[in-house]
């Protein structure tokens, strides 16, 4: 299995092929469209990450020391970003997630989506993923 950074590098390479931001976003939209919706029964407030502009749901499951995420957003570009995050963090151990450094968002020129404001839920989502990882890590080590 690839490391987190290998996956990030792959994403960066994929996006580097687009000169045009339009194509970049078109790609994100496509990814968003392709991402499976989460089970409607998890599309509830408990799994909602509040962002002002778009809603993101994130549903974690824990198995064999690894974490599996499902995610969704009502905004398709955000859904595309979710799909990238899921790719990076899919089936990782808590430790891997906690030790990782996310650089691909910056590198593919989407930093604005990580601004410390509430314009979307991406930053909160990354935080939430780490929180889940932290909780799981504590649980299995206690």
């Amino acid at each position, binding site marked *: 299995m690839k490391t987190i950074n290998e996956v990030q590098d792959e994403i960066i390479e994929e996006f580097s092929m687009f000169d045009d*931001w339009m194509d970049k*976003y078109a790609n994100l*939209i496509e990814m968003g469209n392709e991402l499976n919706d989460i089970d409607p029964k998890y599309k509830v407030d408990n799994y909602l990450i509040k962002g*002002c502009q778009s809603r993101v749901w994130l549903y974690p499951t824990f198995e064999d020391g690894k974490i599996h995420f499902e995610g969704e957003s009502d*905004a*398709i*570009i*955000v859904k595309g970003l979710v799909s990238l995050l899921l790719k990076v963090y899919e089936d990782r151990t808590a430790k891997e997630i906690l030790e990782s450094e996310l650089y691909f968002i910056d590198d593919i020129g989407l930093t604005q989506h990580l601004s410390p404001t509430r*314009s979307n839920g991406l930053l909160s989502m990354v935080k939430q993923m780490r929180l889940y990882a932290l909780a799981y890590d504590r649980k299995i080590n206690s």
Partner: protein
Amino acid sequence: MSFDVQEFRSHFPILDQEIYPKKKLVYFDNAATTQKPKCVAEAVEHYMMKVNGNIHRGTHKMASDATRAYEAVRDQVCSFMNAASREEIIFTKGTTESINLVAWSLGEMCLQTGDEVIVSEMEHHANIVPWQVLCQRKGAILKVIPFDKNGELRLDVFETLLSDKTKVVSVNHASNVLGTINPIEKIIQLAHLNGAYVVIDGAQGIGHCEVDVQKLDCDFYAFSGHKVYGPTGTGVLYGKRELLEQMPPFMTGGEMIETVTFEQTTYNVLPYKFEPGTPNYTDVIGLGAAIGFVLSYGKGKMVAWEEELYQYAISKLSQIDGFRLFGSAENKVGIISFAIEGVHHFDLGTLLDQLGFAVRTGRLCADPIMDHFEVQGVTRAALSPYNTKEEVDSFYSALLRLQQMFV
């Protein structure tokens, strides 16, 4: 004489930039904040870098020059709103502080358990939460005037809400989402007949409507400098003198007092009673330049052009498949809040940005309006007199192009 948009626009060099490579900026986020003409930056810079002295108590020249300039803006705002006297003009940091001030002080003065405060369903959060918090503190009740399908206030319902329990009515002059210019003369009359005080949230009104507080007879009128070509950090609360005299101060500190001992403090006269601490004098002087700028063109002419632009924009945008307009009141400012079917507002805003268009998206600090329409957010293009028909044309084309990306 007609309005020369290019000449007007030339005062705003910020508008002539490529915000991304080869993407010209088209600034349609004017309801959030307007751009500033050069004269405003010059005034601020002058008083920051050449004539800076803390105002009011100074015996030295820069202090008294700055004081004079600051107090001259009070006179200017007084005549801009046609207040009866300069003592009725309180400088704040913005509409939000103005409304908090009046909600607190007026509330202390006149609100009892069981009394009622009325706001409307189309208020900005700044004109909801302070009243909500006040009502909680006082055991009073908050009532709400609903709006109809065009985005117009239901005055018939308003009349049924009014009673001798109503102590305060607070509504906006114009809605920051629906664009509706509310019939505030009528609302003020009705409220006064019931002995209630009326607060007008003029954040969106001041730049777009003639405001004559004596003719309106409103008790309070609040606005932000940054939405009428002035600097951030400036705001105004107009209040009728006899009310301001009676109301207890909101914040306290230096300058608003007459004498202080640990046993007792007596307050200074109006307007200083409501302006504790060092005011943002540099920016208030900038606000003066902004008002001078508006007066030099005349609000009437500016608004006429905005209105023409609005009609032009609506006629174009309505041609887009699935275009939905929120707010179609008869009397509107140039605010276009809309959705395009199947396209999330955040996606639209993000891509519009990439094409150079600055719009606002989301809930626009007006949750009740979103709940009313059962939407998560909208996209808002808010026009200003420096916008052009070409900008509207390119916006229309951009929307068509982007719509394609989501099918």
